């Protein structure tokens, strides 16, 4: 049997502490626990991963193997701005790869501290193929995109807030 070796991971952040103290997991199922963490924080904080490693008596490396295996889990907090590009088959046929590339270029061209606030995500078909190609910017759906519109929409979201 594999053993774990962990320095007792004191979860120090108050919000995280409150969460892990209250964490109830059926059958000690790691995946369920990870989902609960992801739903609560929007990602799996490292501190909480260490706590789970200890709780389930498995090495931290195993937790990260699981987190990175499933696309659903994030290891970093999502940025304030979330750009989600659909890359399902239909969108792909409509050049969604290009949109994705644009989103990345857009991000790289921002000042460094701004970059950190932007997360880009690629998702498989979301079931609105009739609207292809599509993307979400901060939760708002943008259908029938082309390069020009997408660029405008991206700039709108980021620059609005600059003026604010």
């Amino acid at each position, binding site marked *: 049997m*594999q*053993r774990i*070796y*962990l*320095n007792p991971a004191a979860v120090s952040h108050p919000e995280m502490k409150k969460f892990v103290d209250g964490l109830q997991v059926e059958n000690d199922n790691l995946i369920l626990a990870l989902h609960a963490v992801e739903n609560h924080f929007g990602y799996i904080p*490292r501190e909480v*991963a*260490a706590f789970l490693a200890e709780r389930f008596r498995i*090495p*931290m*490396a*195993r*937790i*990260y*193997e699981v987190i*990175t*295996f499933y696309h659903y889990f994030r*290891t970093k907090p999502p940025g304030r701005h979330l750009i989600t590009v659909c890359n399902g088959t239909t969108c792909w046929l409509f050049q969604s790869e290009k949109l994705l590339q644009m989103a990345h270029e857009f991000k790289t061209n921002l000042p460094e501290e701004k970059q950190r606030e932007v997360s880009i995500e690629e998702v498989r078909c979301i079931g609105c193929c009739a609207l292809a190609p599509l993307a979400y910017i901060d939760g708002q759906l943008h259908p029938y995109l082309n390069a020009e519109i997408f660029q405008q929409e991206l700039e709108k979201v980021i620059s609005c807030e600059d003026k604010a």
Partner: protein
Amino acid sequence: MGQEKYIHCTINGIPCEVVEGSTILEAAQQIYLKIPTLCKHPDLVATGACGICIVRVKGMASLPRACTTPVEEGMEIITHDEEIVNVRKTVLELILSTHPNSCLTCGRNQSCELQQLASDFAIRESAFAPFLPNLPVDRSTGSLIFEFDKCIKCGRCVYVCQEMQGVWALSFLNRGMNTRMAPAGDIELAEAPCVRCGQCSAHCPTGAIIELDETAEVWQLLHNPDYHVVVQIAPSVRVTVGEEFGFPPGTNLTGQIYAVLRRLGFDAIFDTNFAADVTIMEEASEFVERFVHDKGILPLITSCCPSWVDFMEKMYPDFIPHFSSTKSPQQILGVLAKTYYSAKKNIDPSRIKVISIMPCTAKKYELTRSHEMYASGYKDVDIALTTRELARMIRQSGIDFAKLPPEKADSILGEYSGAGTAFGYTGGVMEAALRTAQFFLTGSKMPRLEFAEIRGLKGVKEASLNFNGKEIRVAVAHGLGHVSDVLERVREAKARGEILYHFIEVMACPGGCIGGGGQPYGITNEVRKKRIEGLYQDDRSQKVRCSHENEEVQELYRSFLEKPLSEKAHQLLHTTYHARPIYRR
């Protein structure tokens, strides 16, 4: 063991009888037939990751993998035909399309399993559009370099680190095309639990994990006339370095190594075995103090393996009081060279540089492990090279190593007993310590020398000995994956107020230092056994087989240290341990 059942098959038409449960790969080996492999390693359970070992079995629709498919009665196996060779070529071409193909500047040039196969299969052009992941190189450990662009995702390192070593510094992150070997999360290895044992590098088929090469720094020192450069060779190196020059594993080349080191330009040739004898003088005395005089806690645990020390400091800090405070032989030789030898020869210690030739990548880390590694007032050992690096220096020098007549080591840090040489194999430190402890405890001039109970490759070995009516229980573990079992039991016994063992030896690498992470490539249990046998013979051929009878060691205590555990000995030869975080991030 039950009666083994034999079954029959044909391989390329040749009838073959194998033990039931053998894989096709093993069956082929029996008839001296090599099926190419990349992910399978003899030390590891087959995972079937790479697909290069496919063969054809009559009646099976697909081409099964030889490394994972057991032979069945009556199987007709074909290992090489046009389609099989083409599939293997495609596997290689796919791997090469995500590979930097930078063999000329790679640490595995000419010792790379991938390069060998690419050569054997005459891969001459890139069949697929290249795709390089461009992952950052991790040099953080200071002992090993992880260049994951050269990784072929065979998974050996992960199994070694998790199962064999129980460290879990490496893991499989992501999946599919994006799979990569890395520590948990986006951190560097030095921030993960890695203990720098180098077992991952010894098992990696490619140049993705290699030792940090410091031969250039050593050449620089050798070419600088201001320095008096001395060298020490570790116990195991004498029976392993020959493999790099075509000798069979276990060939003892002690005299030739001394000779070649002298020709490379070292000013004095010392032997770590001498310092191992000193380690035993101190450690056996520590044992007697604890065992007889109740000064300190039992079991006493050996501490000459830096990976083990690092592991304990991270994973089992509650065992710190059990650790022998005696430094490892490498460090003892270093500090003695810069104090005792320096004074005797009247050479300023600032001019002395100590180089060590070690089986081990963690020995590079040990040099700066704590402030006690500077006990001479200087860095006690300046550079630690692995066996593989020494072989490289010899080749660079153009010296025909195989033909050199043997020479002797230099006094006053060169003489060794059979006990000193025993440090190279699992059970050897215990054996050496018991030889001297017996003498200390019983005064016997004819102590028992060999302890078959703690020899061999079993992961955990135990013995109960009787010295003058007193029982001494000892345990020996090698391969860090086996350690937790012993320590958990000690912990439980401790909680009950019992002493399970009096003395425990641990070496991080399977087989001990002869199986170290810096040794020549191609490690298997067969090789381990031969290397160990080489050291057994070296031990048996010594006139003096106990550390306390080594005359240069006796002289060291007479004229310099006074006696074991003296104040001076404590100052120079002992160290302390501290709990360290498992993850730095």
